[in-house]
């Protein structure tokens, strides 16, 4: 039963997940609001959901707590961005629930920070929703977050499923281990067969639940509407924002090209696109594909805001201050359709010139300056235009009187030229400058010599000082990848050459490597391809770092702009005087800080708070993840066969199956990315050790977690599942969690499908820690990737590793899954895939996974998701916590002041699994180390009755300074572990933190 239930639950989970997600997200949104409403009497819409919950919970505890929690809940989503928050934000809802909390609702899972709310929910759950909650919590929490995107379709089903789930969950709990073996396929079938009818009865049985579902649906709808009508949403959100955590509004400050400031209120979770469109609307700009929004990261490095991802997750702790600027410099500005576009390009170039980014000679400075004067002042007026009028303009970084005189002299010669003509002349000259449109990045060559990488429309330029020492045109580049702080390009063999060669560059850090990689991917796509990688358009952004440029290419934007049919818009050419030129200076409101504070306040969860504080300082975290896998005895054989290095299968049917549920729709994509990273690690944990950039990985994790918390977004996105998923993926990639990424540059005709990004082993390590279904998905992606890059991959070690890893991972996964049933992967996936799989797959697949991969993905998803859902059910038991603490204490070699130990356990699994006697089949210990992380994996396989049980205990020690968000790292590790072992459920998470109080960076 349990297994069946698990599988069913899994299946259900998907649907459930949606509802759950909705619930969770909605609850977060609505619940929080409700909570707030409870406390503050909020709008009915939000309250609907809340009321249900409340009614369910009936216990007022949640209300006050909820009120407090709402903000926290939103913080978790933001948590990815904000490291301040404790691990709880990252932890899946189920995990978030601490032992102290008997059971958490899935909704909570979405909102890690809301421990309070969780508690309330727990109560509620206990009363009515418990089944649901449990179900949700098990699979739902994780699934909800992950699945939210996918959920859209499932929603209806979800309700039914939820009901079922609840039942199932209950059953599972009771019978949990007994019949875990049941095939997921069956579950799927059951679900299908059951259809809505089943759900209805269930609903009847549990009115409260159904109501909740409805409310959830409503909330989902709301969310969708929100997405559709962001503005409206925002407005509404604004109204509710104060009360509702989710609806928080943030004021974005955008520095426009003329130096003026544009302020815009956006929903806290708004995507970059929203803000960008707001700005373009303000500017009355139609040819916007050449432009973008940038921001400065903590290292003062300029980063491009990904339009498809949430702003908050990208800027992290940075201020909500952006700069509107040219992202792709059109090689031939005369082909732009509108003068206003050219004008904006002129403004950008004037900035570039004045700042020295675009070097030019004295004569060129003078000439360009004269066109600037002509455009902004009109014909030279001897009486009005004296020399001093000119000194307010900045024509060059070092402006001399001589230059100004020359400018005036030339200005006189432009008499009669219209502003548009002057701009055109300006551009005709500026475009010839050798550094026009070249995006420079500091790097070192293989010999450690300082060089500059210049990304431009035609390819990649290599500079040493001002000298161009090499150039790689896009057609010559087969693949672009990065691994850690290394950036690689694979070069097409020349006529006389037989083999492709790979050129590597060392970037200052991983982020820089990723940044240049992304810029390359974007420029290649924009300038080289006719259209973005079509096949994977939805799939552009794949797991982890499978970032792809999803906007329009130059060819497309030209085509689109050729259709522009409007009278030339009037626009004011503002003076480009020095005074008005403050590129970055504008003070930014610390919205983030505010939100953080709110979150902190909201997240009153003792542990979470502590974690938060800890996260900032130097820490060492010891995490022990206990993964248990229940397999059919029959499957057990396969399990034993499992290549999974760390994983061991025990022959005992455990409730774990339910635990396995964790895969979340939204999370999946993230997970996938993570998993992808993880996969490589899987191959060799030792590789993991190599990964230095755990931080990055961590970031991804955070994002992923936020996603889970942000089921709302997913819900709204329903129609855009794929897109969202992509976003998430991209986010993950963006987050730099990806250590590695590959991009296969294909000919324009060829779709970008070739472009693949592979992630690093680090993730793998983490993945090892916890086994999650999502990983499987990831694996599938890696495979596809591997297939594509395979040739190249070998050449490039970094790339090759991922691929290899991916391959290895797959096998591993299958073995791991084997317990559940390899057959399940292949067979079950189809059914599941049909429903949930489709939803999920697209997401995952969307990113990087090729079509082929999709197949794998679905499989993985199926397997993983159900289990994941179950996993979400994890509850925290004090006793366990105590134990864990002990363990952690023992193991952790901590020197520093603060030590905190928190144990999260899955209520179902732990007690049962541990308690059941069995025959120890195998036991092994694997240790891997990386710069920041040491992972120890203990695998034991036990035979119980007809079931084999595999228990994997992973201990991860994360060591790092403030640069690392330990919470994120931990979350990442957990996710990766889950991903690695999709068929397994996480039964216990022990977090032990030791912190040096000295530094609080974040």
């Amino acid at each position: 039963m349990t297994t069946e239930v698990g599988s069913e639950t899994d299946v259900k989970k998907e649907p459930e997940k949606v509802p759950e997600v909705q619930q969770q997200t909605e609850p977060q949104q609505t619940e929080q609001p409700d909570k707030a409403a409870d406390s503050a009497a909020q709008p009915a819409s939000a309250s609907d959901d809340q009321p249900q919950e409340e009614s369910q919970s009936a216990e007022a505890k949640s209300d006050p707590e909820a009120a407090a929690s709402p903000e926290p809940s939103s913080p978790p989503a933001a948590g990815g961005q904000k490291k301040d928050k404790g691990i709880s934000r990252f932890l899946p809802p189920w995990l978030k629930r601490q032992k102290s909390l008997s059971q958490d609702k899935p909704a909570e899972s979405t909102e890690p920070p809301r421990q309070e709310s969780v508690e309330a929910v727990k109560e509620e759950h206990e009363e009515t929703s418990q089944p649901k909650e449990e179900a949700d919590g098990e699979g739902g929490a994780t699934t909800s977050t992950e699945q939210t995107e996918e959920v859209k379709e499932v929603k209806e089903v979800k309700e039914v499923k939820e009901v079922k789930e609840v039942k199932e969950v209950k059953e599972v709990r009771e019978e949990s281990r007994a019949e875990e073996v049941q095939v997921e396929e069956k579950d799927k079938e059951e679900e299908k067969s059951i259809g809505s009818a089943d759900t209805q009865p269930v609903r009847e049985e549990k009115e409260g639940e159904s109501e909740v579902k409805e409310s959830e649906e409503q909330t989902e709808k709301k969310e969708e509407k929100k997405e559709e009508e962001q503005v409206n949403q925002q407005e509404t959100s604004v109204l509710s924002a104060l009360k509702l955590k989710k609806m928080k509004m943030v004021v974005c400050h955008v520095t426009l090209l003329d130096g003026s400031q544009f302020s815009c209120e956006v929903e806290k979770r708004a995507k970059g696109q929203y803000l960008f469109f707001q700005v373009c609307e303000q500017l009355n700009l139609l040819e916007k594909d050449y432009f973008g929004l940038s921001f400065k990261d903590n290292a003062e490095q300029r980063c491009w805001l990904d339009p498809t991802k949430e702003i908050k997750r990208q800027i992290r702790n940075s201020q909500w201050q952006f700069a509107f600027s040219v992202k792709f410099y059109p090689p031939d500005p005369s082909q732009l359709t509108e003068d206003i576009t050219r004008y904006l390009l002129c403004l950008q170039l004037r900035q570039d010139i004045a700042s020295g980014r675009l070097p030019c000679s004295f004569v060129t400075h003078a000439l360009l300056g004269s066109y600037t004067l002509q455009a902004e002042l009109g014909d030279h007026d001897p009486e009005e235009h004296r020399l001093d009028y000119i000194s307010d303009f900045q024509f060059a970084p070092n402006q001399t009187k001589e230059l100004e005189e020359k400018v005036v002299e030339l200005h006189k010669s432009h008499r009669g030229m219209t502003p548009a003509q002057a701009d055109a002349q300006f551009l005709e000259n500026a475009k010839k400058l050798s550094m026009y449109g070249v995006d420079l990045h500091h790097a070192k060559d293989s010999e450690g010599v300082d060089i500059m990488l210049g990304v431009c429309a035609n390819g990649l330029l290599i500079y040493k000082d001002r000298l161009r020492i090499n150039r790689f045109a896009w057609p010559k580049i087969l693949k672009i990848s990065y691994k850690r702080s290394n950036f690689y390009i694979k070069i097409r063999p020349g006529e006389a050459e037989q083999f492709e060669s790979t050129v590597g560059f060392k970037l200052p850090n991983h982020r820089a490597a990723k940044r240049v990689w992304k810029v390359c991917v974007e420029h290649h796509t924009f300038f080289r391809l006719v259209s973005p990688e079509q096949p994977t358009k939805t799939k552009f952004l794949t797991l982890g770092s499978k970032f792809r440029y999803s906007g329009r290419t130059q060819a497309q934007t030209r085509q689109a702009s050729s259709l522009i049919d409007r009278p030339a818009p009037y626009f004011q050419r503002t003076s480009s005087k020095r005074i008005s030129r403050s590129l970055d200076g504008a003070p930014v409101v610390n919205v983030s800080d505010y939100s953080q504070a709110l979150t902190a306040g909201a997240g009153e969860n003792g542990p979470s708070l502590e974690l938060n504080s800890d996260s900032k300082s130097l820490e060492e975290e010891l995490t022990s993840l206990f993964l248990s896998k229940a397999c059919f005895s029959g499957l057990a054989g396969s399990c034993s066969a499992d290549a999974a290095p760390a994983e061991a299968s025990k022959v005992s049917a455990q409730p774990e199956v339910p635990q396995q549920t964790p895969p979340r729709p939204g999370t999946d994509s993230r997970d996938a990315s993570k998993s992808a990273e993880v996969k490589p690690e899987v191959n060799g944990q030792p590789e993991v050790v190599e990964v230095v950039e755990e931080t990055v990985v961590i970031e991804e994790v955070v994002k992923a977690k936020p996603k889970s918390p942000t089921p709302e977004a997913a819900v709204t996105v329903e129609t855009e599942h794929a897109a969202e998923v992509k976003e998430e993926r991209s986010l993950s990639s963006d987050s730099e969690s990806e250590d590695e990424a590959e991009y296969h540059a294909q000919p324009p005709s060829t779709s970008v499908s070739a472009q693949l990004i592979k992630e690093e082993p680090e993730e793998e390590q983490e993945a090892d820690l916890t086994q999650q279904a999502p990983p499987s998905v990831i694996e599938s992606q890696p495979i596809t990737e591997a297939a594509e890059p395979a040739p190249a991959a070998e050449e490039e070690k970094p790339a090759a590793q991922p691929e290899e890893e991916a391959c290895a991972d797959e096998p591993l996964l299958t073995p791991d899954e084997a317990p559940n049933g390899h057959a399940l992967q292949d067979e079950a996936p189809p059914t599941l895939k049909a429903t949930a799989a489709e939803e999920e797959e697209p997401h995952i697949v969307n990113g990087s996974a090729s079509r082929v991969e999709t197949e794998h993905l679905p499989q993985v998803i199926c397997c993983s998701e159900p289990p994941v859902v179950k996993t979400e059910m994890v509850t925290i038991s004090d006793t366990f916590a105590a134990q864990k603490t002990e363990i952690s204490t023992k193991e952790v070699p901590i020197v520093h002041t603060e030590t905190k130990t928190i144990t999260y356990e899955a209520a179902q699994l732990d007690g049962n699994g541990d308690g059941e006697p069995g025959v120890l089949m195998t036991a092994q210990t694997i240790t891997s180390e990386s710069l920041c992380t040491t992972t120890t994996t203990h695998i034991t396989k036990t035979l119980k009755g007809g079931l084999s049980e595999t228990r994997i205990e992973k201990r991860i020690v994360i060591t790092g300074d403030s640069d690392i968000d330990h919470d994120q790292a931990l979350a990442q590790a957990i996710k990766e572990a889950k991903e690695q072992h999709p068929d397994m459920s996480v039964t216990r998470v022990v977090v032990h933190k030791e912190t040096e109080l000295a530094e609080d960076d974040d």
Partner: protein
Amino acid sequence: MAGLMSGFGSFTHAVVRAVPQSLAKEALRTGSQEVDLLKVREEYDEYVSVLKHRLGLEVVELPADDALPDSVFVEDVAVVCGDTALITRPGAESRRKETEAMKTALTELGLNIVEMTDESATLDGGDVLFTGREFFVGLSKRTNQRGAEILADVFKDYAVSTVPVQDRLHLKTVCSMAAPGLIAIGSSEPAQKVLKIMQQMSDHKYDKLTVPDDYAANCIYMNLPGKGDVLLHCTPEEFPESAKVFEKLKDHMLIPVNNQEKAKVDGGLTCLSVLINKKNNI
């Protein structure tokens, strides 16, 4: 007002330097051939005559200096682009003082003078190929990275790419511009290698005019009012096969110029003058 990077090959002035007595015996050379000073002077006179009378350029002739046996090859001591002149630091120490007269002359012509003072830098103008859109600087025995960097710093508008030159004295020993976007290139392996590198390094597409003889690839292209495309190239007597290649450029005013004797001291056609466009200056 001419726009940026327009008017490639448009010149109004040329700076040359009379042949010193010491050239025959003391001028640096990669070979060991005897040089007939008289023949050198004949060739020089013909060269100046073409510039002055046939093409109508204003020719500034610097006085010969026996202390500087290589001084006839003025190209190496100055790189002029637009209204800016970079006075180089020749790779051969014996030639360092050749820059003084050139600097004076260019100053008098109203150019912005930039001197290469960095003592770690060396640059021979013969290693600098200006295509109209960018510079290629040959890294040779006479020119080093630092010299190229300084050049790049002086001519900021243009991309400056470095090209390793092996087995040849200068970059322009094996190539030159025969027209806008057309590179004359020798057939030797070193020459072809150079071309390949240049093609890879450039964002612009260049056609190539391959001539059998490397030395013949050194020609002078000009675009002069009233004359259109002008090309000074080798004579059929000197390089018959290569001359035939040039003769296929029907749209050019082709002017074969004898350079046989100076070739013995590694002097190409471009080496003998510094061309300047005063009108093009903004």
